[in-house]
């Protein structure tokens, strides 16, 4: 029966060899995997381009997304080529939509995203990196999350620091008030970072104006109608003591101006933020003293462009310096003197941007406290 014994021995060895072989095979797959699928295909020839954001009802996000559309049109595609992922203010939906799109596109994705809140940025970025997609973030991320920790796939992050510009508009306001009197602040949603920074800006400026009292600061939730009601109530409480109004953004300022109009109050100094087209008109008319334009159109376009050009291999993010990976967006002041020129340059004719000039209008590397 020796042939049987021999057969069994042979089979055992074969099986052992097979197991060794497979283990080695798996191992080498795993070893290859360590470099990541992103490395394996550094360039995606025709990635899906997507923008993930809150919704389009808000004029600010509408501008952002119109920039994204302008960018895909510059590629010679239809506007519809841009995939819209709308999170409606839900981080869970934001992440779920991204994961769904990653599966659908098999990772051939260039994603521009505001993750709705800062903690959601990490899971979104990790999902993209794992799938070999390329992602650029706007506004929200935690301070410990950095694009350079993820090789090429986390392309960039852009944000704005509103404290400095808000302080400057506050100074314009306080000067217009003659350096005395009472100022009220109508803020955004209290927990939103820009809302906090814009109020900080006012507080910083107030330190140099000891004769101006901050009568009250209330959230108006970025909402025109809420701002209208809060301002009316301020007028009841403080009446003539109010000699200036600091608004966290333009939509709030519209509500404030109408509350003043309802009372027949004219010439009250008001400053705002964001540089929406209608606010620029109001600055030109002198109804608003100053607003700050952050060029959301460019911000929306360039964020998509960075992700796209990294995906297609046009540039290699990991070879760029840190100030090209995390940077502040542009801020432009608009006052009555330059409102008309600004309107002609930026609003009546939306400039045709060079979407490969990634960092030209940006404003330096993001600093952390």
């Amino acid at each position: 029966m020796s042939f049987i014994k021999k057969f069994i021995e042979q089979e055992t060895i074969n099986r052992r060899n097979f197991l060794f072989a497979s283990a080695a095979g798996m191992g080498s797959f795993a070893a290859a995997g360590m470099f990541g699928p992103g490395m394996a295909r550094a360039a995606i020839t025709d990635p899906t381009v997507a923008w993930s954001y809150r919704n389009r009802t808000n004029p600010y996000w509408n501008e952002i997304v119109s920039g994204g559309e302008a960018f895909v049109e510059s590629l010679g595609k239809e506007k519809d080529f841009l995939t819209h992922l709308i999170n409606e203010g839900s981080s869970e939906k934001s992440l779920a939509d991204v994961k769904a799109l990653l599966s659908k596109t098999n990772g051939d994705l260039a994603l521009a995203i505001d993750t709705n809140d800062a903690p959601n940025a990490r899971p979104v970025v990790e999902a993209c990196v794992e799938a070999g997609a390329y992602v650029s973030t706007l506004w929200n991320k935690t301070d410990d999350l950095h694009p350079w920790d993820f090789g090429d796939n986390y392309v960039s992050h852009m944000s704005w620091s509103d404290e400095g510009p808000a302080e400057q508009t506050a100074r314009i306001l306080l000067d217009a008030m003659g350096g005395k009197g009472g100022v009220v602040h109508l803020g955004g949603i209290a927990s939103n970072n820009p809302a906090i920074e814009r109020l900080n800006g006012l507080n910083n400026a107030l330190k140099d104006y000891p004769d101006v009292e901050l009568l009250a600061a209330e959230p108006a939730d970025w909402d025109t109608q809420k701002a209208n009601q809060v301002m009316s109530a301020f007028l009841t409480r403080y009446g003539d003591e109010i000699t200036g109004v600091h608004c966290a953004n333009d939509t709030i300022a519209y509500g404030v101006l109408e509350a003043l109009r309802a009372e027949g109050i004219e010439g009250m100094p008001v400053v705002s933020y964001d540089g929406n087209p209608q606010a620029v008109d109001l600055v030109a008319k002198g109804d608003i003293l100053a607003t700050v334009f952050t060029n959301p159109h460019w911000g929306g376009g360039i964020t998509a462009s960075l992700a796209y050009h990294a995906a297609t291999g046009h540039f290699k993010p990991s070879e760029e310096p840190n100030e090209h990976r995390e940077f502040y967006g542009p801020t432009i002041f608009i006052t009555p003197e330059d409102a008309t020129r600004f309107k002609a340059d930026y609003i009546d004719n939306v400039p045709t941007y060079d979407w490969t000039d990634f960092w030209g209008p940006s404003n330096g590397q993001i600093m952390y406290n």
Partner: protein
Amino acid sequence: MNSFLTRDILVKWAPLLVLLVLIVFFAAMEPRFFSVRNFARIGISSAPALMVAIGVTFIIIMGSIDLSMEGTVSVCAVLFAFAFLAMGGTLASIAWLALPLALLVGAVIGLINGLIHIRLKIPSFMASLAMGFVGTGFALLLTGGDRIRIEDEAFRALLTTRWFNFPIMVYVALLFTFIAWFIQSRTTLGRNFYAVGGGEELAHASGLNVNRVRVLGFMLAGIFYAVGALLAVGRIGIAETATGNNFMFVAITSVVVGGTALWGGIGGVWNTLIGVLIVNVINNGMVVIGLPGYVQDGVLGALVIIAVVLSTDRKSVSFVK
């Protein structure tokens, strides 16, 4: 018997009492609250909400619910603004036709709402909520996210021209409140709302075409939402997708705080008027007495619960769902 009557009367007048107590409270905390100018401000913030709340009152009396107001208000506001500007942009021209057009739009949305509810047999809660989203989406589609400014001085007179210290929009709101009261108490349709809300089977068995009453109710509500939309545009001079924001919470809260029961059959237009005033007095008063912003939402919620406890008769209800 005597004590029963007293309780009955108390329940009936409780919402008004709540309102008076709130006014006295805020006036004691901050005397400037109690001034004609401030009452005018409360009037301005109440006027659009009152119209929307009256619209939904009819539906709630029938024992249904309509949650489409935010979308409907946005669509009416935006279509009004487009039509108004396209036809000349001033009330002195043919553009005044945009006003009845807006009401018509409101009625049509209400009609669709009602038909979806009864023909497809979808609960009013779901049908109207969905229609509301459709409305918001449609308004967004129309505007592309932009805001439309209405600068016409004649139209803005709603806010800027005052008779006896109160702007015209407050009188317009009162006029429509009287119309609503007339419909509620002096027309067959109004009484049919109560019949449906009081007992739908009974109303049906008595030969009432309940479905017809329901559809008409939703159309009527849509017309009042449209009036609310016009006043909202008059107040801030802007028509946009966000014009309808927050109306759902304010309207439903006001109706309930005013003493109209969510299970139908009880309450009416005057209750809603008091309810809207309660909510707006609370909102205005909290800022006037200088309550910090982060406390306000919590206080509003708590006050609403207290107001509902005080102003609705829950003894006659065996269960709450």
